[in-house]
């Protein structure tokens, strides 16, 4: 199931029919929604929380939320948009809870298969750096980046998910990108220091 940008109301109507079937206990209709959204939702949740086990739990809760909501479904949005919003908000909640418990960012180790550690280091330096700093961003900034960059949503769509104005979303996203840009800039500065012997002593 994918949104049709040309006619969103048609998608809403089509999903409304699907939701009526789910509301009546039609498992096949539910499977249809799962097949159309499962992978994307997992990626979104994983992109925000950085842990696959938590991402699975978040998507499971959201899908069950859809199942529960189906009998009372109001045809205002597509099932995909509803699920995206649920997943994003649940993922932000998970990050907030985690921050209270541990106070630090956690990301699964993501490796490139088929590359030696040296090759991986060279090829993925920026990626590792950005991924590390992504884990340090405040939860709403992470969500903004995931929605905009991983989900490829427009500012308008992403702002609706986070329940904020478009201008506020643009500022949130700008802060997130600026932080990542500064992390790259600082890493370059540190590399420059490392090039000269005296600075290495001073720096390290």
């Amino acid at each position, binding site marked *: 199931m994918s949104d049709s940008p040309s006619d969103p109301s048609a998608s809403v109507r089509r999903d409304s029919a699907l939701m009526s079937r789910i509301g009546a206990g039609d498992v096949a209709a539910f499977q249809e929604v799962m097949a159309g959204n499962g992978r994307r939702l997992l990626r979104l949740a994983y992109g925000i929380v950085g842990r696959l086990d938590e991402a699975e739990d978040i998507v499971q809760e959201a899908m069950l939320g859809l199942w529960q909501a189906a009998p009372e479904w109001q045809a205002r949005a597509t099932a995909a948009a509803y699920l995206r919003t649920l997943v994003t908000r649940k993922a932000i909640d998970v990050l907030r809870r985690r921050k209270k418990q541990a106070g630090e960012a956690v990301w699964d180790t993501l490796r490139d298969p088929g590359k030696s550690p040296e090759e991986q280091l060279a090829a993925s330096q*920026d990626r590792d750096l950005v991924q590390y700093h992504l884990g340090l961003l405040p939860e709403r900034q992470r969500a903004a980046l995931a929605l905009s960059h991983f989900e490829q949503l427009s500012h308008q769509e992403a702002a609706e998910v986070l329940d904020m104005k478009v201008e506020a979303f643009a500022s949130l996203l*700008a802060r997130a990108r600026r932080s*990542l840009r500064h992390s790259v800039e600082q890493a370059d500065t540190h590399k420059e220091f490392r090039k000269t012997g005296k600075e290495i002593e001073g720096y390290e």
Partner: protein
Amino acid sequence: MNDSSGATDRLDHMLDSHGSDFSRWPDQTAAAAARRAALSDHGFRQKLNQARRVDAALDGVAQRLDLRLAESGAEMRLRDRLLAQVTAQSEERRFFSPVLLSRFAAAMLVACGLGVAASRISPLPASLDPQRDELALGFVDLPLDENSAI
């Protein structure tokens, strides 16, 4: 703040809001100004290069997420877990579905209507009408005497 630094700040903000791909900027006039600034302004060019590295790195992170997801079998696991939970609830939901309940209500209404119509046709109360007993029960339970009938 003079006009020049104001314009640069605006371009910086656009760069951070919309990314380093100028073709995706909603304001193409600003995008054209950014292209010019990239050629003439060393500071902006440096920021643009960093922004490109960040965007490329984010693309890389997205690819890693996809790869990890595909390897992990998370989608199948999730599907199995959800189906196990939902299938158990679906029978109950089907039984109490609005369609079935409305059909049941309609059947009850028809039955009541038939009952009222039958009482209008028959002059005797139902308990004293042997024809109705015969119709409904298939036999007639005649009273043994006059007193026991009531």
